[in-house]
C-alpha cells in the first residue's frame, strides 16, 4: 500500500526524495520504495524519517482501520 502521507509530508517540507534520503542517510531508491509501499522500513528508519519530516510515527505510518 502506497504511503501517500509520507509523500505529502515530504512535499510540504519542500524536500525532494534525494534531500530526504540524504538527511536520513539512505539511498533515494529506499525512500522511493517506502513511498511506493514496496519496502517495509525498520522502526529505526521510520523514526529517522519522522524526525526529518517533523511528524510522529502515527501521522506517517499508522494504518487507520476502516
Amino acid at each position, binding site marked *: 500500500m502506497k504511503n*501517500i502521507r509520507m*509523500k*505529502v509530508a515530504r*512535499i510540504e517540507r519542500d524536500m*525532494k*526524495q534525494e534531500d530526504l534520503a540524504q538527511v536520513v542517510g539512505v*539511498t*533515494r*531508491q529506499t525512500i*522511493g520504495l517506502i*513511498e*511506493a509501499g514496496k519496502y517495509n522500513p525498520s522502526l529505526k528508519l521510520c523514526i529517522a524519517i519522522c524526525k526529518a519530516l517533523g511528524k510522529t510515527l502515527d501521522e506517517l505510518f499508522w494504518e487507520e482501520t476502516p
Partner: protein
Amino acid sequence: MKDLIQDERTVAQKRKIGSETCSLLLLALLIAILVQQFVLNLPFANYAAEFICFFGACFYLLIRNITAGNDLYSRKNTGYKWVIINSLLCGFTICVVTGIANYTRYGDNTTSSIWLITLLITFLCGTAASFLGFSLIHYLNKKKQQKIADELDEEEDIL
C-alpha cells in the same frame, strides 16, 4: 503479532549466518587457489573447479547487486576516481603475486633488467585489463542507477 516479530529476527539472523558462510567459503576458495597455483605449483586442471566456483560466485554477486539496483559507487561524482584507484591496486596485486611466483620458479635464470621489464609489463597489462573490467562495471552500474532515478522521477511527478 508475536510470531511475526520473532520471525523477522530469526530470518534476519539466518540470512546473516548464510552471508557469513558465503564469505568464509569464498575466502577459503581464494586461499585454495593461491596455494595450489603458487605454493604447490600444480597445473590449472587441479584447481579449475575452485577457480570457476570463486570467480563464478564473484561474478554472480556483482551482477545481482547491479540488477538489484545497489549503487556500487555510492559516492557521487567520485565513481571514476575509484575505477582508477581499483585498477592500479589490482595491477599492483597481480604484479606482486605473479612476480613472487615467477621469482620462485625462474629467479636463478633471469637477469635483473629482464626481471624489471617483466614486472613493468605485468603491472601495465594487469592495470589495463582491470581498468577495462572496472570501467564496464562502472558503466553498467551507472546505467542502472540512471534507470532507477528516471523511474523515481516519473513516480514523483505522478502525485
